């Protein structure tokens, strides 16, 4: 394998490399500014300001999109750069620049090649991207953590058990397997469990929280589309874990009010019947030989 240096490299060692380096760093800058622009203009037409606020689903979607976009771009640039150079410097291409005075020898003490500058430039840029992205999402985190104001939200207590979910409304009304909420109104959930560790999540509404024995966790969501959604358990909790779901029915506010006025602590059974019919999975699980719930 002899060294066939191109004349250019002989005249100016590292010349082609300089161009490449500038290129990859340049590319990353282009990506960065493009994205900043996108973030500022396209991504948030509905919102004033940089930080997405709105329903959980909305803020998640905005941030996810930006991450996907940026992640893909960075991935494509870095991987593309890697593949390009792997091809370019393949042995036999003649581009290789192994100078004989400095070739690797068996038994030498390890040392490094130079190139710290470009290494740090790239490192610095990746740091800028990551840190700025995450700090940006942090502002949204603050918003999410703050939660809705107490007086406007509907408070529901959620209790997981092997293998289902119980919901208790402010008036003491309890349902099993079905959560009814009004559209466009924040719902504040207080979540716990009667037995093992579970995790309550409604993926379409982008809300999720652990259900921990002896502890309460809080989370919230606002649903803007009436309809039926599925809540599922996101922490392995035993044989019925795959089927540990509940229905989340988002109702137009007036319908909800009518339903709620009728719902009292006593007439819980009516709704539970519907629940069991509608969530066939849960009832199958209940009848089957899945291990019985320890706390009924």
């Amino acid at each position, binding site marked *: 394998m002899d060294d066939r240096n191109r004349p250019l490299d002989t005249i100016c060692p590292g010349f082609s490399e300089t161009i490449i380096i500038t290129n990859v760093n340049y590319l990353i800058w282009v990506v960065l500014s493009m994205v900043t622009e996108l973030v500022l203009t396209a991504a948030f037409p509905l919102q004033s300001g940089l930080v997405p606020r709105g329903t959980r689903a909305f803020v998640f979607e905005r*941030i996810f999109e930006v991450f996907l976009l940026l992640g893909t771009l960075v991935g494509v640039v870095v991987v593309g750069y890697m593949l390009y150079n792997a091809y370019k*410097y393949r042995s036999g291409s003649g581009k290789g620049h192994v100078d004989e005075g400095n070739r690797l020898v*068996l038994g*030498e003490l390890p040392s490094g*090649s130079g190139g710290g500058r470009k290494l740090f430039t*790239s490192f610095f840029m990746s740091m800028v991207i990551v840190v700025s992205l995450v700090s940006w999402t942090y502002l949204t985190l603050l918003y999410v953590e703050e939660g809705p104001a107490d007086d406007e939200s509907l408070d529901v207590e959620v209790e997981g058990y092997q293998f289902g979910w119980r919901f208790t409304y402010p008036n003491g009304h309890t349902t099993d397997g079905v959560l009814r909420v009004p559209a466009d109104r924040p719902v504040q959930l207080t979540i716990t469990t009667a037995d093992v560790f579970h995790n309550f999540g409604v993926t379409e509404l982008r809300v999720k929280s652990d259900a921990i024995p*002896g502890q309460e966790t809080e989370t919230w969501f606002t649903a803007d589309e009436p309809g039926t959604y599925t809540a599922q358990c996101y922490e392995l909790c035993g*044989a019925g874990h795959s089927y540990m779901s509940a229905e989340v029915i988002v109702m137009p506010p007036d319908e909800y009010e009518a339903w709620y006025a009728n719902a009292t602590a006593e007439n819980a059974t009516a709704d539970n019947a519907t629940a069991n019919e509608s969530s066939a999975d849960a009832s199958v699980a209940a009848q089957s030989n899945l291990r019985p719930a320890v706390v009924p």
Partner: protein
Amino acid sequence: MTDASPERDAAVDGGHEVAHGDDHGHDFPGTGSIKRWFVTTNHKDVGVLYVVTSLFFLVLGGVLAWLMRVQLLAPRALGEGILSPVAYNQAVSAHGLLMVFWFLSPFAFGFANYVVPLQLGAKDLAFPRLNALSYWLYLFSGILFGVSFFQGGTFSGGWTMYAPLSVPTFTPDVGASTAVLALVLFVASVTVSSVNFLTTMHRMRAEGLTLRNLPLFSWTILLTAWMMLFAFAALLAALLVLSSDRLLGTTYFAMESPAGALLWTHLFWFFGHPEVYIVFFPALGVMAEVFQTFTGRRIVGRKWFILAMVLVAIQSFAVWMHHMFLTSINLQVKTLFMITTIGISLPFDLMVFALIYTMLKGKIRFTTPFLFVFGALLLFIIGGITGVFLGAVVLDYEFRGTYWVVAHFHYVMVGGVTALVGGLYYWFPKMTGRMYDEFLGKLHFAVYFVGFNLLYFPLFVAWETPRRVFDYAPELAPWHQLATVGGFVLGLSFLIMFYNLFKSAFAGDPAPDNPWEYATTAEWAVSSPPPLENFDGTPTYRNGRLEFLDIGEVTPSEGRASGPTGAAVSDGGVTASATATVSSALSTAEATEVEGPSHASIWPFVLSAGAFLVLLGLSPLQDAAFPEGMVGAAYATTTVAGGVVTLGSLVAMGLEPFHGPVFEEGEAWPFAGIDNGKVGMWIFLASDVVLFGGFIGAYVFTRVAFGWTGWEPIPPDPIPGLVNTYILLTSSFTVVLALVAAEKRHKWGVVTSLGATFVLGIGFLVNKGLEWQHLFHEGLWLSTNVRASTFFLTTGLHAAHVIAGLVVALYLTARAWRGAYLEDSRSVEYFGLYWHFVDIVWLFLFPLFYIL
């Protein structure tokens, strides 16, 4: 096995030219003999054993993965599919545990065993018998895990083992307990191994090979071993508490326990996050070595690369709560852990760029090893980018518990596997002396890489699928079907590898010493495979590059040469007494005769088999009782038999004359001039500190959750504890006296002081026994409440340490009686270190449990 020193003659002759290949002595059989593989303590043999065994577990874990992938072909209603719900949960859990513990790390440590001593210029690890012991403990822990499938079903609570699903109330199968005990045995193996590697790597580097000059693969192993030492000690604490909850009926993790579930998440993830780097670092080391060799360039920014890894290794212990963003931790803590998490991801950017820039201006040869590490880097980049998503807390809130996480960690971990497979091809010629088939290797890579992405990439798209679930939204089914196809392609690609390597191992072209142009590390400077004791002369880097000195050239420095090894290693906990005795056994090998190093001992194997039987026998315990009837009796008998085998092999090991590698101290920072045995003891005690730290942390955490002041101390009466404090302090003093007497060569002084220590220790135990007896009479038992649980278990763990110490003290006294330790008092000194440590622990436990 009394005379296990085949090289004695050669050594006495003054030539330390040792036999190559198979022709050494009659006691040490050749590689073709089955017996060799049971007795060998040679690091290269052990390395081969690790690699082969781990690949076996890869197949096992892979078959479980296939079963799951078949189940996931379509959303399954109850009763559909090939696995029942419980079977699916078992498959998920066993797959995760097998792949992470029994495949990935041991695979990497197979290479570490083989290559690191060569790269250091050492003839073997510091404690060869302990190295064999690590291997056999590992193998038997895997077998124990295998047995768990047949005891009503293995553990089904996920590899994260979240409480309280992990306690018998919810997972009552005996097999679940067995799986937990198998993990305990595995941790014992890891701890012994970490102590051994750390001692070796710090103490036995060739002259001129300072830490800065260590090859990158060795660097990654060094950092991995440090992380393992501490992280696995934390895991051991968690597992011992869990075992006790399962077998003895303590209530740390019970549903009713205040914050038991949270306690587990803290303990587990304190281990779990460093574990991520523990499995990944060796892969990074392989990448760095293979990149340099096949690009023909030294790595760019080497010092920064090392610095980045050191930072990651340290910081890995400060990010664990990012796995708990959805628990009740508050915003401040979340913010802190978000910052540390982002912080720890940045050094990886630097490492990735360093590898990429190393290719520039190189002459890249796309051999099989390079293809695999190159592919691994691509996969790691994707894994890393998708990991940043998880670092953004708002996104993590939604990704938690979904296939996003599953896809991400498979990209990272199986990406690591990809690099290690590259390592397997890279070192295969060295390990077998034969070349693999390059075409089949490349074919393997092509199929593997396609299969991998077909398997895992669709999972990002189907990310809304909840994890560990086989009933998912029907519209996601096509993605899962793609993944299943990919799973089979990936799995079958390994058939190509097995065929290739198996055939080549017997019929491949003979490999030269160095088949790779531009390789620089020392393993390529010796024959393939290397001779039994690695080098024909003493390796040195004193002139800036590897040279071998003849025996005569070595500067004699009597005081520094460490002949027989003294190791004092125990892993605490269940096997504490077992390994503590090993310590004395090792440190008391006769040092009087001049003998060459030994390479064979059957006792590590026997000892591990004994430990296996003990744990198997204990597995059906509940509330500290065996089940009724024949089955219970059979288990109890197994325990006793195992105990006898274990103790017997410990004594045998202690009496067996065994000589560790002779070496001339070269670079030994920061332990220059300190005996290997002492360094080993210190390192082991450091891990024991973390073990007790875990227990004390668990106690404090539980008590805080309970309400610190509302917690009435058990026991109510502090007097027995106070008396015990005095007893232990006195016994520390007598150990010091014993050492002084030994140094003054005063035989009876040694005997009486050691005897006094023993008697004081017994006094401590008797006093404690009476105290416990009293508490039992008052109706307090381990399972009474969590206050009782913490008291009995924590002080019980301490008592187990005392008992282990007493076994050693008894052994030392008996030998002192026969005149030992007057020439060489190191055994007494190491025992003293251990004993003082146990006393100091008590000084913490006493106020915590009796006074506050």
